[in-house]
């Protein structure tokens, strides 16, 4: 092979409804590495791309939330397997995006893969941890179970383009929600590549939809969208977060405000369960227990 071989560039595309469209606006923007060197053009999503992503996420919600927790766990684990095989690509993209050495980038990718494994294991346990029978004072069987909130907009962290991204997306879908993800504006390439992995991991189309572009432009219509049930504001700065939370009040979206960790680099800490529970609803079902016979109920 000649060193002079001209390499084949990759055209980065959005991931919506299991497909890889360009932005309907036809716009792209330049993505550079941490030193300003051009890496690729990324689609610059529009309001309409956001709208299409919500439609895809809503369509996928019934099937994904209705899948068994075991099945969801298998698929999340499959994502980890697929990533493991494409580790080199992600190490390169993360190194370029975040200006990390190859070894540090490798550690980040390893942590991201491990995070998928962590959440893969949670799918069929969270229901037991946060749900259960309630001992009501009467002849009733009473059971609380967590259910996914619905379609969740996720503003991925701006700095941690891959580990941060995985850390916010995986818990949303682990419990059966579907997601519209707005990738880091300046470093969207690992996110767009993740779409390619998700597409080959048995994850039904539409469960995760990934948009790149200007966060505020894409997030605004998502925050006010009446068919979006929740929004994770991790990737928004304080001013944008306030604006989006205000818009989200129109249909009372569940809002996960930016957390202290988001600005910092440390996404390696124990994630706990709060990102799982933030997008869960508790449903409580009552039913009479009745009696075996009438003789227990004499006057």
């Amino acid at each position, binding site marked *: 092979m000649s060193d002079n071989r001209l390499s084949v560039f990759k055209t980065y595309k959005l991931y919506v409804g299991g497909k890889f469209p360009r932005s309907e606006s036809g716009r792209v923007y330049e993505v550079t590495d941490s030193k300003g060197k051009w890496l690729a053009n990324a689609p610059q999503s529009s309001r309409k791309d956001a709208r299409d992503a919500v439609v895809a996420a809503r369509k996928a919600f019934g099937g994904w939330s209705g899948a068994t927790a075991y099945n969801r766990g298998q698929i999340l684990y499959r994502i980890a397997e697929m990533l493991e095989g494409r580790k080199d690509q992600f190490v390169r993209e993360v190194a370029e995006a975040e200006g990390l050495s190859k070894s540090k980038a490798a550690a980040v990718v390893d942590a991201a893969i491990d995070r998928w494994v962590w959440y893969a294991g949670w799918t069929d346990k969270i229901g037991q941890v946060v749900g259960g029978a309630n001992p009501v004072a009467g002849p*009733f069987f009473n059971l609380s179970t967590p259910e996914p909130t619905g379609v969740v907009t996720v503003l991925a962290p701006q700095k941690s383009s891959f580990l941060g991204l995985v850390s916010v997306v995986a818990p949303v879908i682990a419990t059966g929600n579907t997601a519209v993800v707005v990738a880091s504006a300046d470093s969207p390439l690992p996110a767009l590549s993740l779409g390619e992995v998700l597409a080959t991991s048995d994850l039904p189309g539409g469960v995760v939809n990934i948009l790149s572009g200007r966060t505020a432009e894409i997030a605004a219509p998502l925050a006010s969208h009446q068919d979006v049930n929740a929004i994770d504001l991790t990737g928004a700065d304080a001013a944008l977060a306030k604006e989006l939370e205000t818009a989200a009040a129109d249909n009372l979206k569940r809002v996960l405000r930016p957390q202290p960790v988001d600005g910092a680099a440390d996404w390696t800490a124990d994630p706990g369960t709060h990102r799982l529970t933030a997008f869960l609803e508790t449903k409580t079902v009552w039913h*009479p227990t009745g009696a075996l016979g009438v*003789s227990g109920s*004499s*006057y």
Partner: protein
Amino acid sequence: MPTTAPAFSDATASDSALRRFLHGLPGVDAVGLEARAASLGTRSIKTTAKAYAIDLAISMIDLTTLEGADTPGKVRALAAKAVNPDPTDRTTPRTAAVCVYPDMAATAVAALAGSGVKVASVATAFPAGRAALDVKLADVRDAVAAGVDEIDMVIDRGAFLSGRYLKVYEEILAVKAECARADGTDARLKVIFETGELSTYDNIRRASWLGMMAGADFIKTSTGKVGTNATPANTLLMLEAVRDFRAQTGVQIGVKPAGGIRTSKDAVKFLVLVNETAGEDWLDNHWFRFGASSLLNDLLMQRQKLSTGRYSGPDYVTVD
């Protein structure tokens, strides 16, 4: 022969058709039924309403003695009490009936002649009903011949619980036939389900419909001889059944809770059930009865309290 309403001729054509019909009746949610009965039990019946209810309850009592130790003397004493429940107050209503075993029927009939108080006789190998059909029918025949006004029969719970509904149905028909008198009139037939043995509310609803379809004039909860007798819930359920039966057929059937109703407070609660479930058409001793014995004295003491303002005591009512 009594006729059943034409609407039911298909349902009673065979054992399987009857099963399909009875199992097609709406189910009963036990907790909801008991909650409704309890809720009606919280009605507060005071002053004039209480006076009305107490007199109504007295007038609805089937004053009962069903003991192995019964004698003509005992029955005559009871009859006297039925006619004149409170010797200190002649405005006290008479009870609806006196209820006895068949061999005491003639005594009761004689004692109550001309009083307006009816005589009811249990029959059909009461309370277990475990005898050959011929024996049961002879039991009925004897009582009718003795001149009773009403027959309280028991159903074959064994047959019912093993799903032989047609056998139960035909037995009621046969008893009903024996209630016919020579003059073309009939003794009124009360059909006792022994709800405590049927065990489930679904069964009680099915038995109610089975009894009504077979020509019962009254459906009655129990014999008073088992652990669980009349309760607000099972009586409420039977009141729903007679209400629905009349809506569907136009035929009105009576209800008789029996056993376990001992206090005025209990009796008034049952009357509230009648009032708010079947409706005021049933607030009459032609359509509602209490099978009871000790209840009467408690009602009388309450009645005395209402008229005098003082609490009464057992020494001021008669022991019989």
